């Protein structure tokens, strides 16, 4: 008797939490395709708002996709060798370096953006270019890439594998290319999906770093929430959901897979 009552209470809390998270999301999706949200769904459904969003914000959407790809390339170029270096040189210095590059996970994006602006804000060529936003995105996503690869590398016997290859005459570069990279693939995949998902949704840093000519998707969202009618803001959010939800699911799948391999 007691047991079923507690279960009922637990179920109620779980369902309430689900409703709290899901209902506004569904409302936003619905509002984005409703002719007139104030009159309700009875006013009819339309794709007019989504098309409006496309006309108004296509540039922001493409900028975000472009930034995400650029961010992925840079985090791979910096993060993959770095993760290998950290895995081959475990010790307090590596721990310290890993801890340091993880600072952007803890320090609010607003503070990091202010720091970047203080140092580079006066370099107008850099300040107004898209690479300035890219630096912010790389700063924020790099620790995810490094940790994701490092977790996989740390779980395997890299030293023995490499010694085997070295005894057969493989150079450090050949070992990196033919042994480290293929073995790190699950971590690279999980890291890559995390980087892209986070970059597309990044707002805190980007809001401070962007210029009126360089608005990313989330910056455009904030813009539309402040100045557009509710239907357009919702339609834009809908576009964002369509982009981010599959990425999130792929990221969760890849991270779970990498974690299984790392164990």
């Amino acid at each position, binding site marked *: 008797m007691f*047991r079923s009552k507690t279960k009922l209470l637990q179920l109620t809390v*779980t369902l309430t939490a689900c409703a709290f998270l899901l209902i506004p999301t569904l409302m936003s999706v619905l509002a984005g395709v409703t002719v007139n949200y104030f009159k309700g769904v009875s006013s009819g459904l339309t794709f007019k708002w989504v098309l409006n969003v496309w006309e108004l914000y296509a540039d922001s959407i493409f900028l975000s996709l472009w930034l995400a790809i650029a961010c992925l390339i840079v985090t791979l170029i910096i993060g993959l060798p770095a993760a290998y270096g950290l895995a081959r040189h475990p010790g307090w210095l590596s721990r310290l370096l890993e801890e340091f590059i993880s600072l952007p996970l803890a320090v609010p994006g607003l*503070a990091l953006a*202010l720091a970047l602006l203080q140092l580079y804000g006066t370099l107008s060529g850099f300040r107004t270019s898209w690479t300035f936003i890219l630096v912010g995105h790389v700063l924020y996503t790099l620790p*995810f890439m490094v940790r994701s690869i490092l977790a996989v590398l740390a779980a395997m016997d890299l030293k023995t594998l490499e010694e085997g290859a070295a005894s057969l005459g493989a150079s450090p570069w050949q070992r990196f290319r033919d042994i480290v990279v293929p073995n790190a693939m699950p971590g690279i995949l999980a890291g890559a999906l995390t980087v892209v998902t986070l970059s597309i949704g990044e707002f805190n840093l980007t809001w401070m770093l962007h210029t009126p000519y360089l608005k990313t998707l989330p910056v455009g*969202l*904030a813009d539309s929430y402040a100045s557009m009618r509710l239907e357009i803001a*919702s339609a834009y959010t809908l576009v964002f959901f369509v982009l981010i939800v599959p990425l999130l699911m792929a990221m969760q799948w890849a991270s779970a897979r990498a974690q299984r391999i790392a164990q």
Partner: protein
Amino acid sequence: MTNRTFVLTCLTPLLIFSLAFLAFPLMRLFLASVEGDNGWAVYLDIIRKPRYINTLVLTVLVSLATTFAALAVSTTAGMFLVRNKFRGRNILLSILTLPLAFPGVVIGFLIILLGGRQGLINQITPGHVVFAYSVLGLFLGYLYFSIPRVLLTVMAAAEKLDPALEEAARTLGANPFRVVVDVILPGLMPSLIASGAIAFATAMGAFGTAFTLATNIDVIPMVIYTEFTLSANIAMAAALSIVLGIVTWILLLIARSLSGTTVAAGG
């Protein structure tokens, strides 16, 4: 090329990037905080001037409320989902983790859809119920953000709890309340402290949600933003950023030492 130089070469791009875009900018930020008219006294001003101390207190209170609410909701839901296998369980789990990828601005908008002037609550209730732009709206926004993050950490720990312990407690005559207090909560404690610290730190620094909702509420991220953009009080903006950054960094350090998880703060 020897092995050692190759490994060091591998670390070079990371070193250069983090020096140029993390270490130096943070040093510059610190210098900017003490280069103002007041010098080092700017840090005293945070606790001396009513505007800043009130902001600090309000931010801590809202963040604490968020933390405890998120812990209560997520622990209950997390234990339920771990201990019961039923049809639709995965759907509930997906719904509860879906908002992980939502930026703070989007969550702010979702709260407006719930509690704004054209919001759901205002439509289905008599009278005029608009709470999106109040402290309650901000609290709900932070809660929305925290539930999935806390849930994942708690569920990971709950899966490692041995159900036999609870059964033993029950056969010894413990009522459900005692089982929760004496068996389940102590077992989950490290992950509860860890995810609580993450939720608290995230709420303290949440800018996106505050940006959409807190137009009239002074919380630290909004004050930093207005000091920087409107009042051009760079020193104060920098000082508040540094204090906020140190607080959230220490909290997340505690969280990681207890649970080993990495959950993105942001928001």
